[in-house]
């Protein structure tokens, strides 16, 4: 509401013309449609019971070991983030893992934090792994090879650090085992056998199509939407979920938020503020690749914790307009670091923004439940290390 309200005020005050606002939104159609396709794909895969089935399989493969299940949750979260984006891991896998470990009578928090953190830590394996990546590369196109060359290895590095540090932090809580009898059967997770198989096939095709589309720089939203339409047709044919139920599972308010943000930032662009911010970042980097990676990473990561990562990505793509005349390696340094910082940065406070953290601190002073602070404590220990290691790896790969 705040973003839409801000945009409305700017339009009413004439600080941006309706035509300009409209053009701004049309220019970013790929982002809007990608969000729609991504949310629909996840909702339809969830309706098939795919995530529940995968979680049960992860537990079965763990034998009876709590530590192996911990590792499997990280690996499963990485796989889901890579193909279906970090939203699917954070919002769908997390409650499923919560139910699973509650049934298994294992400590809940380590597994919950594993899901939450890996959602972001594994969100730059591929361009589709995070909608932020799509927002950024819509403005600064990176071919698949360059994206993978600059971000895949850093992603593996930070995933390893994330897993290693979590094993260290929670070593005492994941030492034991669990009773396999408490585990629900994998068949129970599947709502309808034929639709489930169909969903697996469609998602395999979508994963392949994502890679191909990234390679030839086709809009990723078309792949996501096509996949969602195919799944929806299957779901309706097998009477698993209706169009209305699918629509209910999509967060429509997010489109208003993004649209509002695009318009507000477009209006700020006209004042020259974002350009100045961009020039300041370039100046701070000293024109070197190392400086660009460090400034881009730190700037984006801090920004995501101040104003959430979607607005920060929109601000950064506007601010970095000036780098289009810089040397290609410097451009790549800034773009890769912005993706990296915006994707991984939220793990610092996890609750999303500094405002939320401050609010939680105030609540704690008033003796109100503030479980979100547990995340914050882990995030401030783990995330700076991951940011540093990842940024250095990107710099080495430039």
């Amino acid at each position, binding site marked *: 509401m705040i973003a839409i309200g801000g945009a409305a005020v700017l339009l009413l005050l004439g600080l941006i013309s309706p035509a300009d606002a409209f053009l701004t939104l049309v220019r970013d159609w790929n982002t809007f449609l990608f969000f729609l396709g991504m949310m629909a794909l996840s909702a339809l895969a969830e309706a098939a019971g795919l995530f529940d089935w995968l979680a049960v399989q992860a537990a079965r493969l763990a034998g009876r070991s709590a530590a192996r299940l911990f590792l499997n949750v990280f690996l499963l979260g990485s796989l889901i983030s890579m193909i279906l984006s970090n939203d699917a891991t954070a919002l769908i896998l997390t409650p499923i893992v919560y139910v699973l470990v509650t049934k298994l009578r294992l400590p809940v928090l380590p597994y*919950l934090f594993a899901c939450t953190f890996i959602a972001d830590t594994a969100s730059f394996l591929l361009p589709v792994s995070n909608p932020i990546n799509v927002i950024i590369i819509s403005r600064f196109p990176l071919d698949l090879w360059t994206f993978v060359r600059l971000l895949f290895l850093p992603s593996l590095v930070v995933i390893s650090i994330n897993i290693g540090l979590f094993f260290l932090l929670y070593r005492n809580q994941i030492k034991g085992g669990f009773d396999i009898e408490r585990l629900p059967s994998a068949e129970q997770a599947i709502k309808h056998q034929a639709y489930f198989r169909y969903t697996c096939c469609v998602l395999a095709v979508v994963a392949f199509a994502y890679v191909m589309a990234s390679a030839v720089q086709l809009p990723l939203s078309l792949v996501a939407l096509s996949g969602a339409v195919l799944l929806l047709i299957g779901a309706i044919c097998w009477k698993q979920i209706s169009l209305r139920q699918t629509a209910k599972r999509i967060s429509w308010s997010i489109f208003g938020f993004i649209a509002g943000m695009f318009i507000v930032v477009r209006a700020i662009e006209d004042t020259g503020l974002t350009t100045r911010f961009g020039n300041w970042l370039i100046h701070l980097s000293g024109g070197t690749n190392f400086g660009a990676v460090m400034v881009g990473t730190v700037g984006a990561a801090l920004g995501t914790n101040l104003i959430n990562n979607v607005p920060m990505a929109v601000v950064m793509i506007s601010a970095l307009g000036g780098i289009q005349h810089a040397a290609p390696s410097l451009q790549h340094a800034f773009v890769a670091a912005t993706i990296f910082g915006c994707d991984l940065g939220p793990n610092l406070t996890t609750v999303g923004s500094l405002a939320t953290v401050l609010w939680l601190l105030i609540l704690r002073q008033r003796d109100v439940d503030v479980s979100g602070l547990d995340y914050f404590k882990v995030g401030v220990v783990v995330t700076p290390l991951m940011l540093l290691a990842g940024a250095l790896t990107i710099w080495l790969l430039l």
Partner: protein
Amino acid sequence: MRALCCLDGTNVEQVSKATEMLSTSQPLTVAILYVTDTGPRHDIEHLRERFLRPPGHPPPREEEIRQAEKASAQDILNEGLRYFPAAEALQRQGRPEREIVNTAAEWQADLVIICPRAEYGGRHAIGPKSVGHVARFVADHAPCPVLLVRPLARERFPIPR
């Protein structure tokens, strides 16, 4: 004496041994309590907020979470009843430390029996930070004496003087 035994899913044997020792000196009326911690669910809610989603999961998922919590709590209490067949089983939801002290007051407990922290297969630790925040809060705020049940650790002595 009315003894409120706090179960955490890992400590029923330890708690039952402690009550056995106590019951030799005086008759005990026992209640077993398990509190479902609502903190993790709040964490998941915060996560939805961060991903710009409205609060609350889709209804089937919400129901599944509720059922899992209920079944797990019942399972832990049933296990407790095997050790304390005559005990009253109490189930609460909320912040465990606060629910324990409030239940102790409501049930008019003369003694709260609690373990330092849930042990999930790890080595029972002694030393700094060996008492978790729940047991520490209960010791600080309970309306009656608190019995902190620790495992024997004689083999780790003497400690450096």
